[in-house]
């Protein structure tokens, strides 16, 4: 039997959350004033949780490494946020959103959690509109929707290509209201470097003021980690440069189990790598796949000629193009889920059909959409017998209205006009489904330590559907955590302020200081980036879009060796007593060097293919699905939660069996 208790409430699926809210303990308003909560991270999950907790009456302290809560990387989310509003009348419902999310996650998430997420999704839209979030609207003044990969309905709300920004600014404004009331104290340019446990409970953190270098102690009755995902493990990713695993990894080292680290999402539509200098990758919203058609040349000679620069993509006729997603997955076509689209692109490029100079790119073509929209627009504008030029012009205008900012961004980076020549895209690391293990209340295995948003593992299984990250972040922060945390805090009403002059705080502070000292005293052979890039190469080549036993075993050994070298030879210039970005990076890379090892171990252990985790040894051998990922429900229908045992690769596995009472497990077919 597992020691993990998911605490999913009993009863019918649709009643679980309501029943749970009705039966958990509450803290009365007068007592909330005596309770302190620390929130680490101020993105969608952290910002919305902090605002709501403060609104309820708790004393909240927020911490972010950025100079303002508004700059958390949720801001970069482009496409949209899902909600089961069924405003389009296309048959959507809470159950369908639930079903799509469980299926999209390849049956590796909890039914109870996902149903709750679908239930509160509609509240999120109401809440955000009330806050003044300017979602896109139709001419009638009502909210507009679009469809996203992996589903057959239009349930995605959006604000052009800047949905994450608008939602985050909504949460930030809710935070500002509480800062103004004195209920939130916001610590910016601060980084959490350890969690402090007293009698087994999370009671505070050690943070570094990044401007002065000072090490500070902060106590609280509970600690919420909403510090985002760990995709920067791969060095190149669509994450912000500062995104890191440090907060959750420190919690892991102090006893919080880390779940499913190998489930990472490789997003299919990113701008391809252009050279060795590259520091990050830029995503092009998945919404582009609604109108763009993905293809590579049919003949390998054409692909070679394109790479050599002697042939242009626009010179190839329809017959000479391979729209491989439409060919392989006729039902979903270009709208297959992200993991499927990414692997299909890699398959074509590995087979030699890739198109830019590196051979690692495929086309995303809007020519057909421009013609279709142009003809439609000409018709509604009363233009009879329009010329091809007129149609193209009108069509380009429609496409610009829909995706203008994305096209502009592409043109700035690649220096090519995507209206005239197809875009080039390639998959890139984008999101981490894995994270700290949490129960239904979002509590980790450390009592009093909670994890919300991308930092936890909870709702997306082995693959996240588009426009679901924003939904989960805000669901956790606005509507779940503020209530479930009360159940725990109801036992703390008589505790009183937590003092910071205790041996536990002494020990944690000393630990942080020793580690900084150690980072500063490397031999100075190589910079932090040197190690980070090396780690990224190992991860991408051996733990990337497809994985096998041999590579994963090698990766573990290589990461172990790289970590040893790092601690001996890293070079951190300057001093620790003032602003020192190299020191910050060094601390984060040191943690990635541990996580990477656990990641590879988790991937090695999971011998099935599921969602974002594709094991070359586990593919369908025959039939219609031949060559597609083969899941193994008999042996792997569990959450892998890892307990830290001193060295990452010696972590102990705890399995939480996933129980499916409402959904029948099927092969995920998009054909």
């Amino acid at each position, binding site marked *: 039997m597992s020691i993990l208790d998911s605490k999913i409430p009993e009863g019918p699926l649709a009643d679980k959350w309501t029943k749970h809210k009705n039966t958990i303990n509450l803290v009365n308003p007068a007592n909330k004033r005596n309770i302190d909560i620390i929130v680490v991270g101020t993105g969608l999950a952290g910002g919305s949780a902090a605002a*709501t907790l403060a609104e309820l009456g708790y004393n909240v302290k927020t911490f972010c490494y*950025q*100079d*303002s809560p*508004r*700059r958390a990387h949720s*801001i*970069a989310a482009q496409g949209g946020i899902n909600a089961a*509003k069924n405003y389009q009348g296309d048959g959507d419902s809470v159950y369908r959103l639930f079903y799509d999310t469980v299926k999209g996650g390849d049956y590796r998430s909890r039914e109870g959690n996902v149903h709750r997420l679908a239930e*509160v999704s509609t*509240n999120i839209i*109401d*809440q*955000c*509109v*009330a806050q*003044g979030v*300017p*979602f*896109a*609207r*139709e*001419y*009638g*003044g*009502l*909210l507009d929707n679009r469809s996203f990969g992996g589903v057959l309905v239009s349930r995605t709300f959006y*604000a052009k290509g*800047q949905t994450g*920004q*608008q939602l985050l600014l909504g949460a*930030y*404004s*809710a935070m*500002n209201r509480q*800062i103004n009331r004195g209920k939130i104290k*916001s610590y*910016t340019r601060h980084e959490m470097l350890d969690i402090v446990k007293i009698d087994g409970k999370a009671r505070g953190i050690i943070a570094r003021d990044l*401007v002065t270098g000072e090490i500070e102690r902060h106590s609280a009755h509970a600690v919420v980690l909403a510090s985002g995902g760990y995709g920067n493990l791969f060095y190149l990713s*669509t994450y*912000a*440069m500062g995104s890191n695993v440090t907060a959750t990894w420190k919690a892991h080292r102090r006893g919080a189990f880390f779940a499913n680290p190998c489930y990472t999402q490789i997003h299919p539509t990113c701008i391809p790598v252009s050279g060795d*200098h*590259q*520091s990050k990758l830029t995503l092009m919203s998945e919404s582009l796949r609604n109108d763009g058609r993905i293809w590579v040349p049919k003949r390998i000679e054409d692909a070679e000629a394109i790479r050599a620069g002697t042939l242009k993509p626009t010179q190839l006729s329809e017959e000479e193009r391979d729209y491989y997603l439409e060919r392989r997955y006729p039902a979903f076509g270009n709208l297959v889920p992200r993991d499927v689209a990414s692997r299909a692109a890699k398959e074509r490029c590995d087979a030699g059909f890739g198109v830019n100079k590196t051979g690692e790119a495929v086309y995303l073509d809007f020519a057909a959409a421009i013609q279709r929209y142009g003809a439609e627009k000409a018709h509604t504008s009363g233009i009879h017998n329009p010329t091809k030029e007129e149609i193209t012009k009108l069509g380009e205008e429609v496409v610009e209205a829909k995706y203008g900012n994305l096209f*502009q*961004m592409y043109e*700035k*980076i690649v*220096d090519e006009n995507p209206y005239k020549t197809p875009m080039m895209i390639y998959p890139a690391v984008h999101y981490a489904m894995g994270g700290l293990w949490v129960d239904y209340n979002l509590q980790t295995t450390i009592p009093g330590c909670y994890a919300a948003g991308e930092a936890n593992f909870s709702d997306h299984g082995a693959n996240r559907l588009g426009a679901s990250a924003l939904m989960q972040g805000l669901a956790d922060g*606005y*509507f779940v955590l503020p209530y479930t945390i009360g159940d725990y805090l109801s036992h703390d009403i008589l505790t009183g302020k937590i003092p910071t002059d205790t041996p536990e705080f002494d020990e944690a502070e000393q630990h942080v200081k020793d580690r900084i000292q150690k980072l500063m005293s490397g031999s100075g052979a190589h*910079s932090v*980036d040197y190690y980070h890039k090396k780690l990224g190469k190992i991860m991408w080549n051996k733990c990337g879009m497809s994985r096998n036993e041999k590579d994963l075993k090698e990766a573990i050994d290589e990461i172990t060796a790289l970590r040893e070298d790092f601690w001996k030879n890293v*070079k951190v*210039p*300057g001093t620790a007593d*003032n*602003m020192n970005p*190299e020191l910050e990076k060094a601390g984060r890379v040191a943690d990635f060097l541990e996580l990477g090892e656990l990641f590879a171990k988790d991937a090695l252990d999971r011998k099935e293919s599921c969602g974002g985790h594709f094991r070359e040894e586990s593919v369908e051998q025959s039939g219609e699905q031949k060559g597609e990922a083969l899941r193994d429900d008999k042996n792997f229908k569990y959450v892998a939660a890892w307990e830290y045992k001193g060295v990452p690769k010696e972590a102990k596995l705890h399995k939480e069996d996933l129980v499916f009472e409402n959904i029948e497990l099927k092969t995920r077919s998009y054909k």
Partner: protein
Amino acid sequence: MKLTLKIWRQKDAKSRGELVDYQMKGIEGDMSFLEMLDVLNEELINKGEEPVVFDHDCREGICGVCSLQINGEPHGPDRLITACQLHMRKFKDGDTIFIEPFRAKAFPIIKDLMIDRSAFDRIQQAGGYISVNTSGNTVDANAIPIEKEKADDAFAAATCIGCGACVAACKNASAMLFTSAKVSQYALLPQGQVEAADRVLAMVKQMDEEGFGNCTNTGACEIECPKGISLENIARMNREYLKASLKG
């Protein structure tokens, strides 16, 4: 390509700063401006010198943390982008490039090219929100239809990324474009009307207290704004302010 960089180096808020010359070679057109600075920093670290400190995070033009004055212009010579979206193909072999932090009394320098923009946060905290609790039972999102044009204008104002280029571009170091963008977003929406008067008064008061200058309508802020926030927002804020003041 070969370049000469003249970069502002300043140890901390109290020290005096100066421009320091750096010679660069092997810079490619496909590099972003910040990747060019990465190359410089890697060289400095390997030589045992302290790298240049500059703020950067998302590197895709949306977090708003870049604060580089490049050849005298916020975010450099190109329009409608932040410094992280500027590519080296915009420069020529042999160019000399001046790189300084955004300059304003209300934006003190922390180190080198990194500045403190917490004044912007305090302006937002003074009233840049709609007072609604997260109860989960606000009215249905489609209960209040909003004219598409108004919704689009509110969205356009809301795209401000809070970088401060407007302040850096302004000879008076005025924060009117920044403040008016938030005031406008809410003034254009029915949800924001209820508190409109209090909001504009509180935000403008805070803006003045932070030491930002006045607006003299030169329009430099609009030209340099990476998100193209329109001057109309300032006009709208002035109207809102007047209305609120008369209401007393």
